[in-house]
């Protein structure tokens, strides 16, 4: 709406919005890493699906015990047990800490009440900011610990069997819209979107086969298409927008040209089989995730002013201040392999990344408060005549998020949302390319130890799907080629659903 109607939030409004988003990620990432995907790597599951691996874990020393306190991998896995493990219970507590901080600024979580076009409606004062800080600070030590745990988990599995490097592998092709605007640059104009986009704390970008090919939001936008040939929708025929507002050509399949025409039907793998569409960029299959955020930012070397982050071109350095533990420099390096383990490891680094962006913006908010610049939103009037186009480039906890809107005479005429799970769960496109989940699962070796079909649990496939952090209780259906057998596994369960 801000782009649609030229509504520019004041600096404090942007700072608060940035903090809100960072806090949302601080809720989301521990939830995923320890409550949803974490159990896949717990003693309860590993002992059942790979007894040899469990034996090994009990005898393998950790590398980062100074940060997380565990001496052996077996100890880590035991504390990752669902419902009872200390890491599980601790993560559940940390989601609450993040939500409390969020609620101080947002009113409540989920469904915050203070986010408006043009800023926020929160009253910002010293008390609120201090209450947020006491909760944010708890993530300093926690993020050190989480990073260390997932570094150890990744190293352990790789060493145990190099084939784990292929779990969930697919090309290193991903897109992220970037998040966290710089108040000095963001002017809510499509005309300048490349400038303010490049000044985000998380840089937008498209990575193709491991190479960052663009960080321009306009490129990201005009390259976007959605296909529905294998989805429960009818194709549309109209093309109201042959170009974007700057005159660059758009595809008939661009969201601004899209019409949503549901066509429910029977599931047929060769025809329509999903309610997700197939978003593509430049006709390439891309994935979305929190890890894309850190990848783009690491590669781009385009951070705004920051006290805590450094992009080197091949890594993102994150300076985490002293809390209970000493100040430390964490560094996420762009990986050689791309797979389920790297997705989770990248997501672990997103915790200190998000925490330090929140700190940068918290300190900015304090400076603004001292200067008396406490306006948090800009008033606006909505035009009642004419047609306007708007687009929101933002990010869910799981990554890439776009909202495309067309307004006509003061009413929304068309509204299209592409979420990260739409991207990742997409079915095959008309070019025959499978979606990210499909591709990753097809590439995953089966490393589970089992005697026969009855004892097969599918843990490797479950780890693959869950590494994408699917935002939906979903079920995977794995077909066996030239066979009628279809293995169905619910993904919303932890691996303990296998027993």
């Amino acid at each position, binding site marked *: 709406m801000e782009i649609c109607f030229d509504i520019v939030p004041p600096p404090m409004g942007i700072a608060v919005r940035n903090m809100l988003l960072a806090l949302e990620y601080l809720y989301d990432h521990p939830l995923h890493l320890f409550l*949803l995907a974490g159990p896949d790597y717990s003693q309860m599951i590993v002992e059942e699906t790979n007894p040899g691996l469990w034996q090994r874990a009990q005898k393998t020393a950790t590398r980062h015990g100074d940060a997380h306190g565990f001496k052996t991998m077996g100890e880590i896995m035991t504390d990752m047990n669902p419902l009872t493990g200390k890491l599980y219970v601790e993560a559940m507590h940390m989601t609450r800490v993040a939500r409390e901080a969020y609620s101080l600024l947002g009113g409540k979580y*989920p469904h915050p009440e203070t986010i408006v076009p043009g800023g926020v409606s929160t009253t910002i004062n010293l008390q609120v900011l201090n209450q947020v800080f006491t909760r944010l600070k708890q993530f300093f030590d926690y993020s050190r610990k989480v990073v260390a745990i997932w570094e150890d988990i990744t190293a352990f599995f790789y060493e145990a069997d190099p084939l784990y490097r292929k779990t969930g592998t697919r090309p290193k092709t991903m897109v992220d819209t970037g998040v966290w605007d710089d108040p000095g640059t963001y002017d809510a104009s499509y005309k300048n979107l490349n400038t303010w986009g490049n000044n985000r704390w998380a840089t937008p970008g498209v990575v193709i086969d491991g190479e960052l090919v663009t960080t321009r939001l306009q490129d990201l936008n005009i390259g976007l298409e959605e296909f529905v040939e294998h989805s429960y929708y009818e194709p549309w025929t109209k093309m109201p927008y042959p170009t974007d507002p700057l005159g660059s050509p758009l595809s008939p399949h661009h969201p601004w040209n899209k019409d949503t025409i549901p066509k429910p039907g029977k599931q047929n793998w060769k025809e329509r089989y999903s309610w997700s569409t197939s978003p593509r960029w430049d006709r390439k299959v891309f994935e979305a995730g929190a890890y894309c955020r850190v990848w783009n930012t690491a590669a781009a070397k385009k951070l705004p002013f920051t006290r805590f982050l450094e992009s080197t071109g091949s890594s993102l350095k994150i300076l985490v201040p002293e809390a209970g533990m000493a100040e430390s420099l964490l560094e996420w390096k762009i990986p050689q392999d791309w797979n389920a383990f790297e997705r989770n490891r990248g997501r672990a680094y997103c915790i200190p990344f998000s925490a330090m962006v929140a700190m940068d913006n918290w300190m900015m908010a304090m400076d603004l408060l001292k200067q008396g610049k406490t306006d948090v939103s800009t008033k606006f009037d909505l035009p009642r005549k004419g047609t306007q186009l708007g687009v929101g480039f933002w990010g869910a906890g799981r990554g890439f998020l776009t909202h495309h809107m067309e307004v006509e005479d003061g009413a929304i005429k068309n509204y299209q949302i592409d979420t990260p799970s739409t991207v990742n769960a997409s079915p095959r496109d008309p070019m025959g390319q499978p979606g990210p989940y499909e591709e990753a699962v097809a590439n995953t070796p089966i490393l589970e130890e089992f005697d026969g079909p009855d004892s097969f649990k599918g843990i490797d496939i479950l780890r693959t799907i869950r590494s994408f952090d699917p*935002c*939906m*209780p979903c079920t995977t259906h794995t077909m066996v080629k030239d066979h009628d057998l279809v293995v169905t596994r619910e993904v*919303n369960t932890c691996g303990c*659903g296998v027993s």
Partner: protein
Amino acid sequence: MIKIATDESDFLTLGKIEKIDKRTLVAGVGHRFWQDYSAGPAWIDRMKEIDWPEGLDVEDYSFGALAMTQNLQDVDYQRIVFLSAEARGRQPGTLHWYRYAAGEESPERVQAYVGESGGGVVAIDPLLSIAGHFGVLPPETWVIELEPIATKWGDEESRAIEANFSEVLQRMRRLLSGDAPTKVEVRRDA
């Protein structure tokens, strides 16, 4: 038998309760804009218009089981009444109530509900399961539940929500005055 709530005396009668016998939470659970599955929050919205005596909290608990479990860790309720709607094969449009006893639910089922809650599902069963597992439900936990008629997305409820509201209030009145029924289903998930 569906009662039509056209008589406001039910509201006024209930509103005259002077004292609650024990610290009580009445919580609605359900997705809004899902026709009859919105019964819980819809009833809570109406109940918030009533002037309740001290000791009774009326809250919307339609925000995910994990978060609501953490909420319950903070307050020592001695009685909880959940209001919800769930399709369980009963006659559509009818109202039911049962007492919930946190039992020996399998870790697999509880964790499955954790996964669903993390993915955004809002429903009474995940909440009971997760809250029960983490020991935050008092021994006196009740559920007043509608068997839905209309179950598509949208805000057009069937008449069942409105029609049963008076009966919901009557049952609430019995529970709040310590006159809970003795012969009622006790649900234990195992």
